[in-house]
C-alpha cells in the first residue's frame, strides 16, 4: 500500500511526532518528581518513553508478523497461536486525534480519530507496519473505522453479535472466530494446531494470573500503587509481548507485596477510594486518573476495557481439543464482556457492585468520552441503579484535549471533598 505523501501530510506527521513527544515528556517529567514509586515500574516507563524517544522501538524487535487489534473482543491467544504478535491499536493521543479529525464527523469519539490519525500519518510506525488489523464491529465508529484504515493497512472486520445471550449469537461468533483463525493462518503460514492453541492459552493464563494478583494487591487497604501507574501497567499490555509483560508484572507484584508487608503505601489512607468506569483511558491520555489522584483521591480500581477489564476473564480448557478450545476462547472474549455495545447492561452493573464491595470503593467516576455513545447511552440507567445502592457518583464528559483540565479539576476536587465528608459522617477515620 504505497501512499504518496503530500507536503501537507508530511508537515502534519512531523507536527504530530513533535507534539506527541512533548506530551510524553511532560508526563514523565512529572512522574520523575514523584517519590516512593515502585522501582519495578521502570520497564513500563521505558516502554512509554519510547513514544517520544524511539517510536521504532516500541514493539519488541521480533521477526514475526504483527497483528493490530481493536477492542477486547479479539482473543489474543489465537494471534499467538498463529505465531504472530498482537498489538492493541486503540489510541489515546490528543494530538493524533487532531490529525485524524478530518476523517470523521465532529461527533465521533477521540479514540477512533486518534487511531486514524496515527495510521494516516504513520507517526507511530507500528500503526502502518501491522500485517493485518483486526477490527471487531462493536460500536458505530468501529464499524466504519475499517473502511478508513484500509487505505493504509490490510483490515479484517469481525462481526460481533450484540445480543449475545442467544444461541444464534454464540454460534455466529464461533464461526467468526474460525474465520479469524483462517485469516491468521494464511497470514503467517502457520497452522493453528491443538498444541499451539493449548500453549498460547497457558501463555495468556500466566499473564492473567499476574494480573489477578496485581488486582488483589490493589484491593489492599494500603494503597500500594497509584491508579495512574496501574493504567500504565495495563496499557503496556497493548505493546509488549505477553511473556515479557508477565515477567515485568511479576516483579512489580513482588515489590508491591514486600511494600504491603512493610506497610508502605503510595497514597495516604485518608484518600477516599475511587472506582473509574466508562470509556477507555489510554496512554498518553492519563488525564482523569492523574486528576483524581492529584485531587486527593485514591484510584483503587477501574472497570475499563483499557485496564481493569483487560485480562480478567479466563478461558477454561475443558476438552483439550481444537474445537472446544476455540469455543472457549470465543466465549471468554464475548460472554463476560461488559462493554456497553451489548444489549445486556446487567452484567456491568453486577460487576461494578462487586468491585465496589471488594475494593471498598467510596465513590464512582463515570468517564464518558465525547462521542462515545455506548457508554453515554448506558450511563443514565446505570447511574440510577448505583444511586439506589447508595453509591456516590461523578459523571465526567470530556475528550483527549487538555483544555478542560482546570474545570475538571474543580469538579473532581469537589467530589473528593464530598467523599471525605461522607466518610467523616459515617464515622470513618483518617
Amino acid at each position, binding site marked *: 500500500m504505497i501512499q504518496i505523501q503530500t507536503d501537507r501530510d508530511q508537515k502534519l506527521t512531523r507536527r504530530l511526532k513533535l507534539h506527541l513527544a512533548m506530551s510524553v515528556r511532560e508526563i514523565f517529567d512529572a512522574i520523575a518528581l514523584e517519590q516512593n514509586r515502585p522501582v519495578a515500574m521502570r520497564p513500563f516507563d521505558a516502554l512509554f518513553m519510547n513514544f517520544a524517544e524511539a517510536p521504532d522501538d516500541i514493539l519488541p524487535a*521480533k521477526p*514475526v508478523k504483527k497483528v493490530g487489534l481493536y477492542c477486547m473482543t479479539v482473543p489474543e491467544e489465537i494471534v*499467538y*497461536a498463529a*505465531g504472530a*504478535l498482537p498489538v492493541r491499536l486503540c489510541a489515546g493521543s490528543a494530538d493524533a486525534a487532531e490529525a485524524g479529525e478530518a476523517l470523521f464527523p465532529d461527533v465521533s469519539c477521540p479514540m477512533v480519530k486518534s487511531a486514524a490519525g496515527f495510521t494516516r500519518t504513520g507517526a507511530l510506525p507500528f500503526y502502518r507496519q501491522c500485517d493485518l488489523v483486526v477490527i471487531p464491529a462493536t460500536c458505530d465508529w468501529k464499524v466504519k473505522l475499517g473502511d478508513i484504515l484500509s487505505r493504509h493497512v490490510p483490515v479484517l472486520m469481525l462481526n460481533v453479535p450484540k445480543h449475545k*445471550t442467544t*444461541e444464534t449469537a454464540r454460534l455466529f461468533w464461533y464461526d467468526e472466530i*474460525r474465520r479469524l*483463525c483462517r485469516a491468521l493462518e494464511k497470514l503467517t503460514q502457520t*497452522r*493453528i*494446531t*491443538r*498444541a*499451539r*492453541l493449548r*500453549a*498460547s*492459552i*497457558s*501463555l495468556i*493464563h*500466566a499473564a*492473567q*494470573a499476574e494480573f*489477578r494478583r496485581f488486582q488483589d494487591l490493589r484491593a489492599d487497604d494500603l494503597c500500594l500503587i497509584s491508579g495512574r501507574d496501574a493504567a500504565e501497567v495495563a496499557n503496556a499490555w497493548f505493546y509488549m*509481548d*505477553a*511473556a515479557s509483560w508477565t*515477567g515485568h508484572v511479576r516483579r512489580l507484584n513482588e515489590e508491591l507485596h514486600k511494600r504491603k508487608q512493610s506497610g508502605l503505601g503510595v497514597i495516604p489512607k485518608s484518600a477516599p477510594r475511587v472506582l473509574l468506569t466508562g470509556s477507555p483511558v489510554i496512554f498518553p491520555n492519563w488525564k482523569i486518573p492523574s486528576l483524581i489522584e492529584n485531587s486527593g483521591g485514591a484510584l483503587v480500581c477501574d472497570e475499563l476495557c483499557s485496564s481493569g477489564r483487560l485480562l*480478567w*476473564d*479466563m*478461558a*477454561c*480448557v*475443558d*476438552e*483439550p*481439543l*481444537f*474445537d*472446544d478450545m476455540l*469455543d*472457549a476462547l470465543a*466465549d*471468554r472474549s464475548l*460472554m*463476560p464482556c461488559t462493554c456497553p455495545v451489548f444489549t445486556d447492561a*446487567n*452484567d456491568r452493573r*453486577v*460487576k461494578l*457492585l*462487586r468491585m465496589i464491595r471488594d475494593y471498598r470503593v467510596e465513590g464512582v467516576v463515570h468517564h464518558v468520552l465525547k462521542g462515545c455513545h455506548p457508554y453515554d447511552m448506558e450511563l443514565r440507567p446505570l447511574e440510577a441503579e448505583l444511586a439506589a445502592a447508595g453509591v456516590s457518583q461523578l459523571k465526567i464528559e470530556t475528550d483527549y484535549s487538555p483544555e478542560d483540565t482546570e474545570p475538571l479539576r474543580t469538579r473532581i476536587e469537589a467530589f473528593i471533598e464530598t467523599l471525605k465528608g461522607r466518610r467523616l459522617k459515617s464515622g470513618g477515620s483518617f
Partner: protein
Amino acid sequence: MRIDRIRLVVQALFFIFLIYGGILGFSIGNAVPTMACIYAEDRGGSCFLYPFQRFMSLPWSTLLAATIVPFLIYLGTFFLWGVVFGKAFCGWICPLGFLQDLLTKARHLLGIDGARFRWASRERFQWVKYALLALLILIPMGIGSSLAGLPKLSGDWAVPFCQICPGKPLLPLFSGDISHLIIDFSSPVKLAMSGLLMGLTGLFLVGGFVKRRWFCLYCPMAALLSLFDRIGLIGLKKKGDTCTRCGNCYRACPMEIREIADIRDRKHMVTQDCMLCMRCIEVCPENKALSATFLGFPVFTASADGFLKRHGGQPPLTQEDLPHDTDSNGS
C-alpha cells in the same frame, strides 16, 4: 488435582465394586438408585428399577397387604440413598454413567471433537425421561391389575424398562456374560422390545462417543433422583453477584445445563439433569461463584487460584517456546 480425574477414579472403583463385588460376597442391597444391573451376575448391589417394576406389577391386593412391609422397607432404603447421595449417584457411581465417560475419554485420546445439542433439541427431549418413568410404572401395573377397564397386559411386558435398558446387554459383558446380546423371537412383544434394545444399545455407544452423557438425558433414574434435588444433603450453590456469566461452566458441563451459567438470581442450582459432577465448579474462575455443599456447608468452592492451578503446567516463557509440531486439529 482435578475433580474430573478424581471422579473417574471414584467411578472406576464403584464400577468394580458394583460389577464384581458379589464375588467377595459384598452387597449393598437391591434398592440402589443407580444402574447397577441386576443381570450382572457378580454385582455388589443392584439397580432400584428392577425390583420396583416387579413390585408395581403385583396386584393391588398383594402389594398393599402381603408385601407392604418389604415394599416400604425397600422404598425407605431408596429414599435414604437418595437423600444422602442424590444425583451424586449419576456423577460418581453409576456404571452406565462411567461407561459413557470412558467413551468420552476415548474420544479425547483419539483427538476427535465432540458434538453438542442445539438448545432447542435439548429442550425438546427433556420430557423423555419422565415419560419412561411413567411407563415403567404404568405398564407393570397393567400386568397386575386392569387399568381403566382395559384387559390385563401379558407377562411378556414384565420389567419393561429393563427390556430396553442398555445396562442389560452391556454390564453383564464385564462378567463375560454375552447372553443378553440377543434378539428374542419368543413372542411379538419380546421381539419388538429386544429389537429396540439392540438399537438403543448401539445408540448408547455411538451417542456416548460423540456427545458427552448422551443417554443420561433420557434416563428415568435421573427423573427419579430429581425428587431429591432440593432436599438432598449434597447441594450445588451459586452466588450470582460474583458470576460474570463467562459461560465456562455451561461449556464444560457434561449435561450441557445452561442455567448454571445464565441464571444469577437463584441460589440453588441442582437442576433436573445435574449429576453433581462438580465440573462446573472447577472451571469457574470467579471466587465463590459456585460451590458444592454438604449439609449446607461448602466443601468445594470455585476460585481464581484453583482455576489457574488446575489449568497448571509450566506456561511457555516466550512465544518461540510455543510448540511447532503439527497435529490434527479437525478443521
